[in-house]
């Protein structure tokens, strides 16, 4: 019994981290039709930047801000000077983001060396939360809280604000949205920066749980892809549900069949692609 609760909470915490990463990836893909293969690298770079900020003496909370801000600035530069020059060439854009991912990954090894580095946990969230005989790290509960708050905020932003309405219009039918006078060229940088900031801040947030190491980027990126394939393109709800599904599968899988945890990841993809290629909540086939 305890095992299932604890692993369930672990899955929820991992799914929360995935959601922070995948929601930005899914929004960018949905609106801009850019498969941002740098997204995992943004996550890792954000974590390293946050780590350096903490080493320099700032608090964990400021480090999250710095990580998010740094990566959103990087994202803005890449969007403005590289991706926009390749607009209308989706494949070229994917390959450029892949190249950038390699450059960032290697630069991280160069700057921060190849050793795994744990990000120190904020002192106020250290320790465990106890109910009867169950003990669960407070920090993971906090991460779960952050993801649910983020999901609610993003939902509100997308469904209830004018900006969100424009983004949704762009996701559904870009050329029609343009024809209706929505300046999508202004939306693109906003969404790309938002997604990048989420990846960067998410990396810092994940640091105390996953720690930072070379290869974190290529560990996380395919999971984000699987989440989007599972949930459907540009669907916030899909990213949320998909993240939780993968989080649970990964957590229970690693506890029950440590060798096969990765094999089990095939299952949801096989099922969804066979039965519902649009993803659980998507409107169009990927």
């Amino acid at each position: 019994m305890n095992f299932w609760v604890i692993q369930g909470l672990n899955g929820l915490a991992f799914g929360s981290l995935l959601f922070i990463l995948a929601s930005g990836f899914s929004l960018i893909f949905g609106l801009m039709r850019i498969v941002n293969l740098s997204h995992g690298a943004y996550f890792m770079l954000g974590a390293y930047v946050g780590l350096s900020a903490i080493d320099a003496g700032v608090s964990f909370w400021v480090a999250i801000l710095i990580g998010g801000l740094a990566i959103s600035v990087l994202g803005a530069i890449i969007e403005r000077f590289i991706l926009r020059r390749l607009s209308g060439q989706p494949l070229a854009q994917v390959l450029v983001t892949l190249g950038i991912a390699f450059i960032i990954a290697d630069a991280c090894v160069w700057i921060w060396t190849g050793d795994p580095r744990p990000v120190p946990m904020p002192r106020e969230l250290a320790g465990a939360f106890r109910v009867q005989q169950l003990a669960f790290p407070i920090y993971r509960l906090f991460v779960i809280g952050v993801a649910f708050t983020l999901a609610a905020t993003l939902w509100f932003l997308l469904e209830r604000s004018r900006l969100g309405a424009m983004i949704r219009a762009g996701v559904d039918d870009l050329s029609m949205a343009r024809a209706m006078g929505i300046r999508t060229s202004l939306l693109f940088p906003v969404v790309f920066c938002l997604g990048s900031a989420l990846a960067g801040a998410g990396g810092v947030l994940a640091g105390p749980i996953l720690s930072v190491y070379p290869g974190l980027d290529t560990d996380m990126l395919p999971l984000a892809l699987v989440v989007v394939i599972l949930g459907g393109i540009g669907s916030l709800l899909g990213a949320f549900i998909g993240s939780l599904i993968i989080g649970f599968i990964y957590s229970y899988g690693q506890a029950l069949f440590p060798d096969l945890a990765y094999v089990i990841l095939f299952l949801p993809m096989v099922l969804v692609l066979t039965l519902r290629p649009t993803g659980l909540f998507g409107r169009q086939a990927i």
Partner: protein
Amino acid sequence: MISTSRPQIVLGLVAIAALLAMPWLVTSDYYVNIATQIVIAAILAMSLNVLVGFGGMVSLGHASYLGVAAYLTVYLTAHAGFGPLAGALAAIAATTILAMLFGYLALRASGLGFLMITLALGQILWGIAYRWASLTGGDNGLGGAVRPHPLGVDLMNPTAFFYFALIFLAAAMWLISRFIQSGLGQSLQGARDQPRRMRALGYNVWLIQWLSFVFAGFWGAIAGMLYAYYNQFVSPQTLHLTTSAETLLMVIAGGTGTLFGPIVGAALVVILKNVVSAYITRWLMLLGIIFVTIVMFMPEGLVPGTRRLRGIVRKRRGSPTTPALPVTEERPT
């Protein structure tokens, strides 16, 4: 379409003659081994080019077939008691079956979705190789494969192994070009350019693309089998995204949709990687920079790109170039 002009045929014959004479021209085993690496990479790149160049399906998971076939070859021959021939055949057959499954999954989507699914499937395989340590040796990889002695020839000799691999490259060149010129290959190119029109004409586009996918996976498996015997060792790196990306770079650099361009691309990438690795450890960064540079400035590939630049210099007037990266089709909703 393939147009084999006279200079191209001459160039091809010269290249083949040079390859055949290679072991006499260079006496050092080091260079013979690099030539063998080029031959293996060329088979893999040619197989990927069937998808990318002629099918318009950009896969970022083609290392899957190299890696799975290599792992199976090493595992079956060194740890499961298979003979060298039986092990190789079983590995190639199993990998081809895997390509059937992956092709079925990836072809549920087209364009960018196809790319995402192939990448995700490939990285999951990498995760299995990396984490299922009791079976795959994890990060340490799997060793112990011994090069076979077909017909009494000792393949431990680098020159002998070079010719052994060259036979497979020749077979790949012949059979892949036959495939491209066959009805199936022609309809694959039709499905790349005009999928909806092909469907309207009664072609089963899905089946055409799936068969091509399996065909490409089969040649990827051949490359993997050679890779296993060449290195006598296999590590998760074989399955990693960077290997898929390197292979895609070979295809793009050589010019997609040209039959023998990927061989040139393979030579460029393998030589560059060996030269660079001798001096610095920043291969991954260089790979990234090359990707960005090619996409930004030479979208039609290095070989056609240089030809175009030469043409501009000669004529002072650039001819309109077609981007070699296939344009992904948006599905009608």
